[in-house]
């Protein structure tokens, strides 16, 4: 069961109408290492992972959905009043022709979301190493978007999201240690 709280995890502010940034950000919406992939990956793996770490995967999956909501808000704000000229300048015409101003689960290259982005091997160590890699890849993607973005307010939100990937990477690394039975205490994050 989900309990929905009608506010964002972290405030999303955008300084200027810039649909080009939306084109980059959509990578974190429907890309291989994006927030949707992250949420679905952990929420799916949680069923077959040893019970010591089920809670961790569920908690992080829930948080990823709240990140997805932040990305959606960013993309929406960056594009909502864009004119066809601005859409053209941003190179978003293919998206516009297909989806109008709707958001869509696709990557920055326009490729639709695909379940093969998500691994579920059923081997606890393999799955957790996958998750650690996924967090580092999401961190790298945020860095690349920050490198390309000149919007300080947007970058503030992106830096928050990037830091969360670091924390998640830490917790998955600790989960591996728990399964190695080097450690068995619950952690606060």
């Amino acid at each position, binding site marked *: 069961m989900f309990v929905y709280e009608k506010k964002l995890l*972290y405030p999303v502010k955008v300084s200027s109408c810039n649909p080009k940034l939306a084109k980059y950000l959509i990578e974190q919406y429907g890309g291989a290492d994006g927030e949707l992939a992250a949420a679905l990956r952990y929420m799916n793996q949680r069923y077959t992972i040893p019970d010591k770490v089920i809670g961790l995967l569920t908690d992080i999956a829930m948080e990823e959905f709240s990140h997805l909501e932040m990305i959606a808000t960013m993309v929406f704000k960056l594009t909502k009043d864009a004119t066809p000229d601005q859409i053209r300048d941003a190179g978003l015409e293919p998206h516009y022709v297909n989806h109008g101003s709707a958001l869509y689960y696709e990557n920055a290259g326009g490729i639709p979301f695909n379940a093969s982005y998500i691994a579920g091997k059923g081997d606890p160590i393999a799955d957790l190493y996958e998750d650690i890699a996924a967090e580092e890849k999401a*961190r*790298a993607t*945020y*860095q690349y978007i*920050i*490198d390309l973005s000149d919007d300080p307010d947007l970058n503030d939100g992106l*830096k*928050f*999201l*990037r*830091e*969360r990937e*670091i*924390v998640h*990477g*830490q917790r998955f*690394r*600790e989960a591996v*240690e728990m399964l190695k039975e*080097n*450690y068995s*205490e619950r*952690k*606060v*994050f």
Partner: protein
Amino acid sequence: MSEHRKSWKPYAGKNDPCPPLKEKTYETPPNLYLGVQEPGLEQYKPADALKKGTLWPALFGPYESPFAPSTRANKKED
């Protein structure tokens, strides 16, 4: 350069079409070093923690683009 950023000097050929970047960088966030987090570590105040994205200074790994003008200027000094 921040402690979370490492660099190396890649080979540059004399006929490379783009002006070579003499030094390239990559990030090494604190989760690579912390190990299993010890209880009782120092914490940020709640408002700061919400802003930074972590409660723990030991896990905070800030990022500025290595291509940002301020960052590049700093780079020349090392």
